[in-house]
């Protein structure tokens, strides 16, 4: 209905593979980008720092995990550990006097190196066994951080992060943190969008479908599985660093426990495996739905509905669970697929299906 396809013609094959061939989608992307840029002026500081900022940061992390799960088909139940490695290495690097930009790089590299070591397990095992192996990574990293005071500063200790400096200029407050996170988010998003147009992305897709078959096609599963873990862990490390520098402003072991890993996996699955847009939607649902639901229940309770204080604590969780189950029953392929269905419905409007 809103999509216009007449007059779209290509004079070269690269032009035919552009990201958004439809005019309205380009406009939409521009609009979203513009809104993201002026968001601090539109939203109250509370909304910005407790809703939008975490959404952007968790989206970066979920994008990294989606590269591994949706792109290469490798499950990872220890992604929070990957983020933890990034968070701690960036913090220590910055405290040692390294510039913030380089600290981010250190975070990515440290996560990538350690992530690849655990990812090597994927060369021999897959499916549930890989899930257990990555779960082991979660516990090993948790244990290592907790028991090496040189990293955590002690079992229950919290290490404050220095103020990030971009080109030597200190960036303070939620607004500055938001813009740092946004820039990183845009870079990672562009990378993910373009991934499927590269030989790397196609090789990952081949491995996702069947690694034997990919080998027969001449794609080195060894090389590409390690590259997938490397890239994904790199993004995870950077996301971890951004999380502690721009949002928590300090780093402690309990920020990166198993629960966080499971939440990240939930974001990817609810959003839609392999979809960039879905990752954002999934992160929003997993992250913001509990907050929105508690607010809703609280306002219902204060408006006079007889909701007991016990119920008031548990009802949001019940609704939250129901919401996730409901979405997955409605569309097992995730929120991205729901959007895709709506898009296709409007794309062929006013007909039932595409007609030649």
């Amino acid at each position, binding site marked *: *209905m809103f999509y*216009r*396809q*007449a*007059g*779209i013609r290509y*004079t070269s094959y690269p032009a035919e593979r552009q990201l958004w061939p439809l005019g309205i989608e380009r406009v939409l992307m521009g609009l979203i980008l513009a809104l993201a840029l002026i968001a601090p002026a539109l939203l109250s500081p509370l909304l910005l720092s407790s809703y939008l900022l975490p959404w952007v940061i968790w989206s970066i992390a979920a994008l990294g995990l989606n590269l591994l799960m949706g792109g290469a088909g490798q499950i990872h139940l220890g992604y929070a550990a990957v983020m933890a490695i990034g968070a701690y290495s960036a913090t220590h690097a910055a405290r040692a006097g390294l510039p913030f930009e380089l600290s981010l790089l250190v975070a990515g590299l440290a996560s990538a190196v350690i992530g690849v070591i655990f990812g090597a397990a994927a060369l021999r095992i897959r499916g549930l066994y890989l899930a257990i192996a990555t779960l082991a990574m979660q516990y090993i990293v948790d244990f290592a951080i907790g028991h090496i005071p040189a990293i955590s500063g002690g079992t229950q200790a919290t290490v404050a992060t220095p103020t990030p400096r971009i080109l030597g200029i200190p960036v303070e407050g939620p607004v500055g943190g938001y813009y740092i996170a946004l820039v990183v988010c845009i870079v990672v998003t562009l990378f993910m969008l373009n991934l499927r147009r590269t030989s790397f992305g196609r090789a990952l897709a081949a491995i996702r479908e069947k690694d034997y078959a990919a080998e027969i096609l001449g794609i080195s599963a060894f090389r590409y599985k390690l590259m997938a873990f490397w890239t994904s862990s790199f993004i995870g490390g950077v996301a971890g660093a951004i999380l502690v520098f721009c949002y928590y402003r300090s780093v402690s072991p309990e920020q990166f426990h198993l629960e966080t890993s499971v939440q990240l996996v939930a974001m990817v699955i609810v959003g839609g495996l392999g979809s960039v847009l879905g990752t954002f939607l999934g992160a929003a649902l997993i992250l913001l739905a509990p907050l929105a639901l508690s607010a809703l229940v609280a306002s219902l309770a204060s408006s006079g509905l007889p909701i007991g204080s016990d119920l008031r604590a548990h009802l949001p969780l019940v609704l939250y669970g129901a919401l996730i189950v409901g979405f997955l029953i409605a569309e097992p392929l995730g929120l991205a697929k729901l959007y895709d269905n709506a898009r296709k419905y409007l794309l062929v*409007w006013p007909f039932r299906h595409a007609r*030649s």
Partner: protein
Amino acid sequence: MNARATPAAVAPEAAGTGPPATLIAALARNARDHGGTTAIRERELGLWRERSWHDLHGEVLALAAGLEELGVGPDTAVTIIGDNRASLYAAMLAANVLRAFSAPVFADVPPAELELYTRHGEPAVAFAEDQEQVDKLLDLRSSIGRPRHIVYDDPRGLAQSTAAGLVPYAKLIEQGRARLAAVPGLAADLEGRSRPDDIAILMHSSGTTGTPKGIAIRQRNAVAAAWSGGCAGAFATGEDTFAYLPIAWVGDYLLSIAAALVMRFTINIPERQETAMLDLRAVAPTLYLAAPRAWDAMLTRVQVGIADSTPLKRALFNFFMPRAIAMERRRLAGEAPSARDELVRRVGEAVIFAPLKDYLGLSRARHAFTGGEALGEDTFLFFRALGIKLTQLYGQTETCAMTAIQFADDVRLDTVGRPLPGVEIKLGDDGEILVRSQSTVDGYFNDPAATAKAFTGDGWLRTGDAGAIEPDGQLVVYGRVSEVVHTAAGDRYIPNYLENRIKFSPYIRNLAVLGAGKPWLAAIVCIDREAVGHWAEQRGLAYSSFAELSQLPQVCELVRNSLDDINRQLSAPLRIRRFVNLHKDFDADDGEITRTRKLRRTVVEERYAPLIAALYAGAEHADVEITITYENGTTGAFARRLALADVADAAFEDRAIPVRLGNGAQRQAMEGR
């Protein structure tokens, strides 16, 4: 009665000083002043390959230089056969550079008829699109010794061919370029040769009444036609056009060559005929000409798609479309739309019309024309209601398709518009429309007898159409003079008009209305295979062939209802009372229609004489056996028992025949060759 009522002509801004003298001069001017602008966009393996005016100019001159070496000289013909290809268009112009003329032939002409289209102008060189056409030309050469040289565009299947005189298009260009480089001054010499009095192209009359006559359109005719169209606002400078019509039809020549050069269009050429409708969407032309059957086919696509759509979308369509059509009808009758109407139209535009125009590829069409024959009123209104400014273009091959046009703000349902600037129109004694203009040819090629018959001494062309000129200068066309017929009861009607009305039904693709000298009207109907097939599928009706589908009792009922709907809109004597669903579609290979899909009434009436007799005798069935011609020229016999049926209508007070339907008893025999 002599009408020269023409709105004030506005000179197209492209011009500056005036029209170029010849098409070659126009090509040189475009290459000089707008060398970087895209002239031709041709789809090849999914990509739109572009040629600028500079490229095209160079290509045409190189081709001409190469052609001259093959022996093409002034006043000889160059045969062009194939679907629309940039190379074939370039060949047409290259022939003109050498003062020779192109003689395009319909791509689907069978080998046996090819001789008819190549008898004028001693064509020694032929341009063929692909191997299929090359084979036809080789056949032709084995029987009449011409053409000596065959230039082909698509080399697929020809690499190993050893036939003498086969030249790949690319090689000819190469030779031409080499020659241009070797002979200084040759390019300028070539560019300056063409004269306004040269024949630009040799068209053939459609042959509704016999063998096609050669119609020699001269350079000055072609330029004048394009210029008057520009002056009339039929098209502006720099339009995007879609070249998909047969290259041997004057409509394509006018838009894709004459007007394209004079008004500097960008010509978009689809990949193949089969992809034309998809490619149309990719092009979204600003100027679009289609024959009525193409508009009908488009309408059918929409109707079938909507019938198959979800209830919500169908309901929206059924709400907005009839209202928009009714509003357009009132608007054309001179009523201003009310505010409420306007609101409904705007919402409809957003919800239904704009998506439909986008789907059809007509969202950018500023100028849309129908031409060639009359378009059914309902189809016309449908597209105008969609918001496409569809107008009628009335013309003959002899006038380079430009006689009259409906001006944008002056469209009436019952007229074809006003004469174009520079076109004079008057009526002959018997009501025949006579035309005189700069774009009218001087006569038929090498046929003084036919020329004397069709042209008066002082340059007027007898169009053969019966018409009238309204007091305000609008021209009304009734139909062919030879086609105005009377029933035995003395009622006057034009079968073609009725046929076009009836073809609005998506289920009817072709039909012949009968009734000359008969007490009432009857029809031979050819169902639309796609639409009816889809309809049958949805209802779980099994069929294995067109013939079987056409004879299903339910399909008979479907056609009956369609006819009944139209009957209600017609005065009593013009109603169709009986009909038969033919077991095959009318086919140009069988001679039932022309290559441009006009009905050859006499052929149909002769061929189906027993069937027609049975229709009027009130029989329930008729056994029909006809000879059909296959594409390769072989023939076969096709026999079948057809069910004859009445159209139920209580309005027939003198009904003698009770309503009945044929049963399913059928006999089919196909005997090959």
